[in-house]
């Protein structure tokens, strides 16, 4: 009996899934303590969050909308990490993708499918170059990708703030670009929603109508497809084999004849392209324009967290992105309901990441405890 328990415990602890679950529970516990210290009832707060996520179909729809860009930037960071590169630059690549999608969505006039394809395609290409640049700088000059991508992030941010001031792109003084053409939008049933039949349907169907009130869009479908694509590239293709070999052990990969520098550039190209796709879907599905930003929005940075929680895999990023989206959306509700600080949610997420990202720390603590128990 005890032996079985031991075996089970070890399996759980050595697997990354178990570690992730423990970390999530720890995150919630720490969040509870902070709420308690701040004078709020943690149970009540969590109940509010839970209700804020699941109690209406509209809420669930919002969670998915929140999660979509996070899943994709998570995939971006995960892809680079699997090749041993830390793409802090998903943020900047996201911004470049968003600019390109907003521009293509506004300036071109094309039929629906073609227009969307073109906007996304251009966004991905530009963002891929933005990411690939960091890979190239590393391969050519040995500059660490963390340094170069941080700089590229700022350049992207200021570039974005510059283009929205251009007369051709946005009306003066609003700090916003013009909205994209309707043919470039990926919202579901957007025309029908405002038709008479649509309005009637929304009024009479509580659950579905609720969903249709949100800017529900096809982004989530693309996100899931991209997750499958990432998984496929990494695990099924020759390219993925190369990239993983480089990620695990560049010395052995090099000795085996793999061009490590080329692999770095390719990995950053793909990673950048993914982050750009996140920006594109956000523009085409939710914001329909870009606006002047006081600071970075953090989709790329959140992608780092998503990737880590999702164990740097395609499917993992989908679940982690949904969890992250749910916490962000649901967490915002405790402010109104209880006047509790939403920062608690960030602390919770931070704690989860801390523990997921430091499995060695947890294992260390466990072995120390075990040793103490024995003596």
């Amino acid at each position, binding site marked *: 009996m005890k032996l079985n328990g031991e075996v089970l415990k070890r399996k759980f602890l050595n697997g990354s899934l178990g570690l992730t679950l423990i970390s999530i529970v720890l995150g919630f516990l720490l969040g509870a303590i902070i709420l308690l210290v701040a004078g709020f009832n943690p149970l009540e707060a969590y109940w509010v969050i839970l209700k804020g996520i699941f109690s209406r179909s509209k809420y669930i729809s919002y969670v998915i909308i929140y999660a979509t860009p996070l899943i994709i930037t998570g995939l971006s960071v995960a892809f680079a990490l699997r090749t041993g590169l830390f793409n802090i630059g998903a943020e900047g690549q996201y911004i470049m993708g968003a600019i390109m999608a907003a521009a293509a969505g506004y300036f071109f006039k094309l039929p629906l499918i073609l227009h969307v394809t073109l906007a996304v395609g251009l966004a991905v290409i530009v963002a891929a170059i933005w990411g690939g640049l960091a890979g190239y700088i590393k391969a050519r000059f040995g500059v660490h990708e963390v340094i170069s991508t941080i700089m590229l992030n700022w350049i992207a941010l200021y570039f974005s703030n510059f283009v929205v001031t251009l007369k051709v792109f946005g009306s003066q003084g609003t700090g916003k670009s013009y909205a994209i053409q309707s043919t470039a939008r990926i919202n579901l049933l957007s025309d029908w929603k405002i038709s008479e039949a649509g309005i009637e349907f929304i009024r009479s169907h509580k659950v579905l109508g609720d969903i249709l009130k949100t800017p529900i869009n096809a982004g989530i479908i693309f996100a899931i497809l991209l997750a499958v694509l990432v998984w496929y590239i990494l695990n099924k293709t020759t390219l*993925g084999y190369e990239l*993983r070999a480089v990620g695990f052990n560049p010395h052995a990969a090099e000795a085996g004849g793999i061009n490590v520098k080329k692999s770095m550039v390719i990995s950053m190209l793909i990673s950048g392209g993914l982050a750009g796709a996140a920006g594109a879907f956000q523009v085409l599905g939710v914001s329909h324009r870009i606006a002047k930003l006081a600071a970075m929005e953090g989709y790329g940075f959140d992608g780092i967290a998503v990737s880590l929680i999702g164990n740097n895999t395609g499917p993992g990023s989908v679940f982690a992105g949904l969890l992250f989206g749910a916490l962000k959306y649901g967490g915002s509700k405790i402010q109104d309901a209880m006047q509790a600080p939403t920062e608690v949610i960030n602390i919770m997420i931070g704690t989860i990441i801390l523990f997921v990202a430091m499995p060695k720390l947890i294992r260390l603590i466990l072995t120390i405890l075990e040793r103490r128990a024995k003596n």
Partner: protein
Amino acid sequence: MTAIDFSQKIVEMIDVVKKFGDFVANDRINLTVHKGEVHSLLGENGAGKTTLVNCLYGLYRPTQGRIRIKGQEVEISDPNAAIQLGIGMVHQHFMLVDTFTVTQNIILGRETTKMMGVLDIARAEKKVAEISERYGLAINPRDKIQDISVGSQQRVEILKALYRGAEILILDEPTAVLTPQEIQELVMIIRNLTQEGKSIIIITHKLHEIKQVADYCTIIRRGKFIDTVEVDKVTEQELASMMVGREVSFAVEKKAQQKGEQILAIQDLVVKDNRGIAAVNGLNLTLHKGEILGIAGVDGNGQSELVEALTGLRKVAGGSITLRGKEITGSKPKEVINRWNIRTIPEDRQKRGLVMEFDVAENLILETYHDTPFSVRGMLNRDKIYAYADHCTQVYDIRPTNPYLTAKSLSGGNQQKVIIAREVSNDPEVLIASQPTRGLDVGAIEYVHTALVNQRDRGKAVLLISFELDEVMNVSDRIAVIFEGKIVGIVDAIGVDENEIGLMMAGGTP
């Protein structure tokens, strides 16, 4: 000749058990050492020798069992307690500060001070010189560590232990880093020490060294106590069988050589190390079909840089490498592997040889993953890859026979078999084997040597680089000695004199 005083048991370890978690590294080991005795510990890699002596030196606490020192039962809680009891240890990796003098290193942590805390270096130096004199250590107390040889550094470690009053000296694989001459010097020192009534525990897996210096030998196999034998009463063959648990052959079985035409030629090669210094400095060498050319030399004389240059991993700063008369200098690793069919067993298995997180099958295709049938139009063909891996695990006896296991989970010997399978199965023109048996036990060494000889017997060329002179002498047909980046002598392996090579390795001329 021996100085053993059987009336005095200095060390008694009784039924010592040491567990790491559920893993039993030492399972009821018994060890008795008398005054003036040299006692060797013999066992394959991972048998638990270091663990046992660490228990004696207070680095580990035994899970069970008792330790007696001079008849007194003791608890050795840490190395300081061990030193108090007269136990000294020389680790495999020295613990010396390079920029300090010998004396400064020796008194580090237990400085003798004059009044008001002023260091009394002069007195310490005098004492160091005295001890050096007494045991024939030939150490100058004022030399800086960075200026003296590895062998001397080891003697400083011995001196340090003696300075602290060691009666029992533990030496963990002391000969691994020494040249043959230095080994002979160490043997003399050990004799001097025992004459003076010191007791020695020496770990080594070189059997002839045991025969040479030890009085008794305790054999450990997979953590279990096998036997303690009087060294004079057993043969090396018997020691080896006890260690491995089966019969092993030492003599590398070789057919008469069928030496063929010249295949690889290296001319005036210059290769710089990471600091920009020419580590290979005008090296000339030719390699023929059907021969194993061994390169003997002490670590750090340009061996690594030579191999990296040959494999395309390091830039060539001068000179040329030609394969069958065709210039291949400056080829990329991929060209070297796939175009010139030069394959390498790298010196660092885990760094250069394997992707530890990849499974056996993925590691087996590391150099051929892009070729059919493993890759078809950019897609991996898993069926073919794992079928091939199944085949390899059978043919090359990789255990466990499961291509889905990660390389990390294999033993060192089986990791090496994966590399050999990968490098040999494509029938390379030239096989470069760099330290191919480092850290392997007797059984695995036998396997590796057989693989090298098979290549040679099939008319292929093998370049063997090793710091183990025994290995170079046993396996090679010709031996080239490398010193400071140059080949300083080439001799036929048949009828070679070990001392002659040893002298060349140390930079002397025969």
